[in-house]
């Protein structure tokens, strides 16, 4: 070889989404130098184009399989699936933010630049095949989210949420990093494939470095997906953040955390699966139960949905405990459906209120179903879907997850999961009851209609119902993605 090649031999197409998202985020920061008014749509439009470009570039190479950068980043079925999912989450979030950020006077270019960086971090997490890349992706996603949560700078709640999220998030990163260091010491590598190979040669369960390292890794990732007992930040961060950011992080950050867990579960931990079943089962049971029971007590819809998102993390964990390719595809399916329902439900909350006021208490929804029938029907669809009632996609997602768990012989876990779903219906229906059967006590909530936001909600309703009826299309996609994994 003559000299050092100027460019690494890299398939740039496989990195298309990463390049598009980083380019878009930087372009937005440069655009800030050109003057624009407070009502400008420029940043939102640029980020929409960027996200569409990222999605399109993945679409071009959706069937190719590559390992890039010495195996640190892989472009395989799971990467493609999650990149599509994150681009979709990003697009819906941009549409929901469109008027919300103008209304709450946070329409700054950085808002969208941070949204794109955070999406980029998620994509890197989904595609990383090395624990260091997981760490980098996770930090890129989280650092952008810490700022987004505190984006209403003059708003005390927003700042408080940001501080809590940041301190606990950094704490969890410390655990994750130390876990990675210990795993590196035990196996001599941080690459997931090589780690699996090392483990099949020599069993690692006798090695305390490996056991402690893996436990710390689970703690770090468990924090990001807000599994109990690492969930304390979730309700505060979700409640204090601007609602459009809550929508984005509740869907995206959770899916990204699970993307990393699915990858680790399929390769490294999968090799010693039986030994992890008790630990992960306990976390799954706690997560489902604590999330659902605490959600019953909430009067703030944002907080209630935060606890509900904790409970949903528990259902996905059931799929991960079931393990194998079936478990992974059920988890992928569940995550896609969950993201959609949650974006929709939070999306409706972004439309409520006038100016900077927030109308997110259950009592604020009173009578909304009759005054705004479209909004009422949409919210009802999301609540039924979150509760897992047919014919919505939420029902099919739960059926697949529990079906896979039954096949894996996890009967107690399934029983607890189903009981939890029943409990959850109470608080989801409470919102529907408030909308249709209660009269507003004070001034009825003003609805700030906005075309982009309404479009996003409409798209979420349509897909929630469509995947409820035609679930196999999405499930096929999820199964093929997992089979296409390395």
């Amino acid at each position, binding site marked *: 070889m003559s000299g050092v090649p100027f460019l690494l031999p890299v398939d740039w197409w496989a990195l298309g989404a990463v390049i598009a998202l980083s380019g878009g985020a930087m372009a937005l920061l440069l655009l800030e130098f050109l003057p624009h008014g407070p009502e400008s749509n420029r940043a939102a439009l640029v980020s929409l184009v960027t996200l569409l470009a990222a999605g399109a570039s993945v679409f071009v190479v959706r069937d190719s399989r590559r390992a890039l950068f010495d195996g640190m980043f892989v472009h395989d079925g799971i990467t493609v699936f999650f990149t599509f999912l994150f681009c979709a989450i990003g697009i819906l979030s941009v549409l929901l933010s469109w008027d919300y950020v103008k209304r709450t006077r946070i329409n700054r270019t950085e808002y969208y630049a941070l949204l794109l960086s955070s999406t980029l971090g998620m994509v890197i997490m989904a595609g990383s095949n090395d624990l260091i890349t997981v760490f980098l992706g996770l*930090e890129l996603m989280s650092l952008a989210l810490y700022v987004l949560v505190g984006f209403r700078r003059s708003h005390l*709640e927003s700042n408080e949420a*940001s501080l809590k999220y940041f*301190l606990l998030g*950094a704490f969890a990163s410390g655990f994750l*990093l*130390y876990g990675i260091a210990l795993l*590196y010491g035990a196996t001599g590598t941080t690459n997931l494939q090589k780690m699996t190979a090392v483990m099949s040669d020599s069993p690692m369960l006798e090695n305390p470095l490996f056991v402690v390292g893996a436990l710390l890794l689970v703690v770090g990732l468990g924090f990001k997906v807000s599994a109990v007992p690492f969930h304390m930040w979730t309700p505060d961060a979700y409640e204090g953040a601007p609602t459009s950011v809550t929508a984005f992080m509740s869907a995206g950050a959770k899916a990204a955390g699970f993307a990393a867990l699915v990858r680790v579960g399929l390769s490294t931990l999968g090799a010693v699966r039986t030994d992890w079943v008790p630990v992960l089962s306990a976390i799954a049971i706690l997560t489902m139960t604590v999330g659902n029971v605490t959600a019953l007590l909430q009067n703030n819809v944002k907080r209630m949905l935060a606890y509900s998102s904790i409970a949903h993390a528990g259902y996905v964990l059931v799929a991960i405990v079931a393990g194998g390719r079936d478990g992974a595809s059920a988890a992928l399916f569940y995550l896609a459906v969950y993201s959609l329902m949650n974006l929709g439900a939070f999306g409706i909350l972004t439309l409520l209120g006038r100016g900077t006021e927030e109308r997110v208490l259950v009592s604020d929804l009173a009578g909304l179903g009759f005054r705004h029938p479209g909004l009422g029907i949409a919210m009802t669809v999301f609540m039924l879907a979150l509760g897992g009632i047919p014919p919505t996609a939420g029902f099919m997602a739960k059926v697949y997850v529990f079906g896979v768990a039954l096949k894996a012989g996890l009967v107690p876990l399934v029983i607890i999961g189903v009981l939890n779903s029943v409990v959850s219906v109470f608080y989801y229906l409470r919102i529907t009851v408030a909308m249709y059967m209660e009269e507003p006590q004070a001034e009825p909530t003003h609805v700030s209609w906005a075309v982009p936001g309404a479009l996003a909600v409409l798209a979420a309703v349509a897909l929630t119902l469509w995947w409820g009826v035609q679930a196999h299309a999405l499930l096929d996609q999820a199964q093929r993605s997992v089979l296409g994994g390395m």
Partner: protein
Amino acid sequence: MIPASWSLLLSAVVFTIGVIGVLVRRNAIVIFMSVELMLNSGNLAFVAFARQLNSLDGQVFVFFVMTVAAAEVAVGLAIIVNLFRLRESVFVDEINLLKG
């Protein structure tokens, strides 16, 4: 030569100090410093293992982690300063609007 196990022991001690610091201190800035201790103990463990395993990977990772830690400082201090402007306090016990 100092054996690698000593460095590992030191990193474990520093990590534990960091964890305890986060759990018992109530000043946001001190909590944040404890988090940095945790990250640095990870770095120390990486270097020690790299030496023990005779591979360069671990030493390279430290650079990544240092970059991340620097970015985290920038974001974290900005958040704490902004909160201080509004509340004139950095004690996490006094920051308690959100609950339920």
